[in-house]
């Protein structure tokens, strides 16, 4: 396994210009798409099968009467423990040697279980191709010594690309500096590899709590309960089986009849 790559999106540097959205569309040759009315500049409420990078705009009035307009370029988190990958029954969703998560469009059969299993609601179903889509971490670019298109185009370096360990160290320094500068709610999201989902390979610096950005406060791997749920089903089966046996049991001797 090669050294893990990551994207660090520092929302304190984001000016909401949407160059990342356009670069992503252009590089991935994504087709035309109707925007949605969200009541703000944000052109989709959430990711779609044709929008892999989405800039979120959150107006948040502050206690002192001032306004905060939180700008965040959101993307697939490429989780170290990925719900989509665990859900895929065809093996179409795989992890590259760089730690990024990709959906092989030649294998995906469109069952949409991955769509239901992303704690962030990232994966989307493309009704035209019948397959699931999401950010590929510019898979072709990273295999040719280039970074993702969004990182390259970002004019303020809000989106940074590099080795995960180096970016994580940078992020820690950055959040400390922001706190010093007075951003008391500045926090990292997804940096900690001992944290939720084993850490995110596309992690963030937020200026407010995650729920303000419509992110789950503590994302969990959806498949964490398979064993428990299965055991409960087994229990149910046993009880049902016992009930059925009691209903059909012949008094005195068993199974005597011919079919």
């Amino acid at each position, binding site marked *: 396994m090669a050294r893990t790559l990551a994207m660090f999106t520092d929302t304190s*540097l984001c*000016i*909401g*210009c949407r160059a990342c959205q*356009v670069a992503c569309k252009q590089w991935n040759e994504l087709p035309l798409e109707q*925007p949605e009315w969200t009541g703000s500049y944000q052109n989709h409420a959430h990711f779609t099968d044709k929008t892999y990078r989405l800039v979120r705009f959150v107006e948040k009035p502050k206690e002192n009467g001032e*306004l905060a307009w939180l700008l965040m370029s959101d993307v697939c988190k490429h989780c170290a423990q990925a719900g989509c990958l665990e859900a895929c029954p065809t093996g179409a969703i795989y992890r590259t040697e760089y730690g990024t998560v990709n959906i092989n469009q030649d294998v995906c059969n469109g069952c949409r279980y991955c769509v239901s299993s992303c704690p962030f609601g990232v994966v989307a179903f493309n009704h035209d191709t019948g397959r699931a889509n999401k950010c590929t971490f510019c898979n072709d670019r990273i295999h040719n010594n280039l970074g993702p298109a969004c990182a390259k185009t970002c004019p303020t*370096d809000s989106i940074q690309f590099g080795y995960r360990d180096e970016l994580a160290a940078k992020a820690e320094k950055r959040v400390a500096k922001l706190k010093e500068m007075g951003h008391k709610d500045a926090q990292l999201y997804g940096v900690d590899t001992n944290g939720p989902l084993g850490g995110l390979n596309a992690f963030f610096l937020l200026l407010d709590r995650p729920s303000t950005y419509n992110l789950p406060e503590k994302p969990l791997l959806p498949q964490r309960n398979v064993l428990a749920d299965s055991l409960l089903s087994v229990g149910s089966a046993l009880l049902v089986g016992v009930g059925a046996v009691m209903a059909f049991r012949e008094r005195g001797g068993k199974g005597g009849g011919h079919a």
Partner: protein
Amino acid sequence: MTTNLIDIQNSDVIMCTNNMAENHPVGFQWVMKAKERGAKVIHVDPRFTRTSAVADIHVPLRSGTNIAFFGGLMSYAIQNNLYFKDYVVHYTNASFLIDPGFKTATDGGGLFTGLEQTGKGGADPHIAQTYNKSSWKYQVDGDGNPKRDNTLRDPSCVFQLLKRHYSRYTPEMVERVCGIPKAKFVEVAKLYCGNSGPDKTGTITYALNLTQHTNGVQNIRALCMLQILLGNIGRPGGGVTALRGHANVQGATDLELLYHELPGYMAMPLRDVHPDLKTYLEKETPKGGFWVNKPKFFVSLLKAFYGDKATKDNEFGYQWLPKRASADAYSHQHMFVDMYKGRIKGFLADGQNPAVGGPNAKLARAAMQRLDWMVVKDIFITETADVWKTPGTDPKDVKTEVFFLPAAPAAEKDGSLTNTMRLIQWHEKAVNPPGDVTSDAEFFVSLAKRLQKLYAGSKKERDKGFLATSWTYGDNPKEPSMELVLKEVNGFATEEIKDKDGKVVYKKDQALNTFVHMTDDGKTAGGCWIYTGVIVEGPDGKLINKANSRKPADDKDYLGHGWGFSWPANRRIIYNRASADLAGKPWSEKKKLIWWDPAADGATPDKKGKWVGLDVPDFNAFLAPDAKNGDKPFIMRADLVGAFFGPLNDGPFPEHYEPMESPTRNLLSKQQNNPVVKVWQVPDKKNELAPLGSKDYPYVITTYRLTEHHLSGVMSRYLPMLAELHYSHFAEISHELAKEIGLDNGDRITVMTPRGKIHTKAMVTHRLKPFKIDGKTVHQIGVPWHWGWKGVDALPGSKGDITNDLSATVADPTVYIQETKAFMCNVKKGEV
């Protein structure tokens, strides 16, 4: 801009008065870098925008009150001794004494001394009255030099007049006029003015937020005056950050695609004022400052136009040059009013979409529908090209014959772009244009040659000039060589030039290295003197195109002199002499830029001393600080100093006047509007203005741009990837106003002014808030203007109503720019 985008990282405080993050996102990275270094960012804007989102302080200001704001800051700086005294005393005209007959607007009820009625013009103040500037001058001594008081105490000195003029601009007044709470204004004044002096600098950014007003020029003057008051010009992290609104509009103005100037910022001759070359040069050449060289630049320009046909004997072709019949004519707005009145028969729109992009767009479209013919050259079929079938117009009623010629965008042609920091960058053709598509150069050269053929036998005087123009740019009959065009712009020797010792300095046709080598005797040609140096010839005669050089900035050269070419002479920060004190030392080590090195080699082997440093000196490199004029940084001005007192058409000091449509009487004085504002009388009620206090139009409206779209939308609304970034056209409305009208976020609404009405979608937001103007609530809305009826059919939101249908035909008296940033409107729920 006088400085350089990269240099913004050196600012201690940055005051963005425009929406820089949204409209200059790439340049804005340097503001972010300044923030990393501890700079504070102030954003002054009626709306809370994406710039405000990353600024430290947002200052909400009612549209149209920028002079009140800047005046308030100047007054605050003066009252609280925050100005940079040494800089002000020595590098500006603050100490100069003014004719005692001159009185400021404080004593003139909002007017300066000398306003006279002309007896003409009636309803157009621009013609009906004018300022007699006879008292707007310095007191001079026996030698003709301005009298000065370096203590700045003489009541007639500019500084005291400035103080008197802005004495009305108190923090209380700023609150009443601009709607900025007093405490916030004082906070900002302390922060911005406090970050000045020898080791602090600040820069102010602006764009069309300041220009598109009937007080546009004075808005910018006020900004510049504040900057010289605080000693920020010519220093790292300082300067005036004028942000041009288009990738090459700087190039467009440098090469003067404007009606009133010729390339290199020289006046377009006026027929009656400049009847011959001698008179032109006499009247237009000042007695001091670098413009004393104007004759060299002007004659070289004529040589570039007319080639060998321009000689000493025929005034270098001066008589062939078209002249202006009047100074009050030919601007965009003049042209469309004339077009509507039927005085213009034909029109060529090259890469411009006045059907959408110009003020009073309904009038513009009606005007174009009265033309006999129109040629539209553009990359898409625009609303202008389709004006003959504007929705609501029956094509049968329009007799205009329209020719559409497809144009090549930047990637399909060679050429240069000059950006907001005067940086000329070359781009090479990446792919051939398809089919009939031609570049502008190809079109114009080919058109010129065809016209010359057409007029070949003509004996008419007026055709001689055109027939004399030279269009030789290489051997390809179809495509001109853009590098040869650049060479002509740069300038070259028309014949062999020798120095006084007989040594050949330039071979015939060799590119000039510097505009200093231009002559007024016809030996040099140069299409735009400020560009000289962009292209030079190597020893082998091959052209070295500096606009194409791409050496990135590094620690040794943070300004990146190896990347592109920045006019003039690759100087990145102009007026940089001002970064050093009278003795030639930087004002501080932290803010060093250039300095005098007495030990360096001088101009000749026997002399010593040179200006050195981190930038090309914007100064005679060998002029010692203690030599005559060695302490005067503002070399382009006749008196070589920065001007607080600057005799413009509407006053030597900026004075706050209300926009032509306003929600309030002028609280600063009895003079409601700019006394010499240009207002056109247009037939058929096509330019009605809302009277003061009109109940029909109670809300202030401002129009602006978004990151995702470009100007009239031709470069963005046809491209799905861009067109889909915004759901549709919208108007931003405060929650408070929405509640009053009964609007929900997303409702369809009608916005109307006396010129027209549009239907759009309400975006109700916290980012707009009502103002308290003189104690009364004044609502303001904002509407972007990128939409027109054409776009991507599959994306209905890419099409929308034309915001400019709402704006009026009124103009600043100096440059005739429109007032699209502040006027009045009404908003109704539903599509009325």
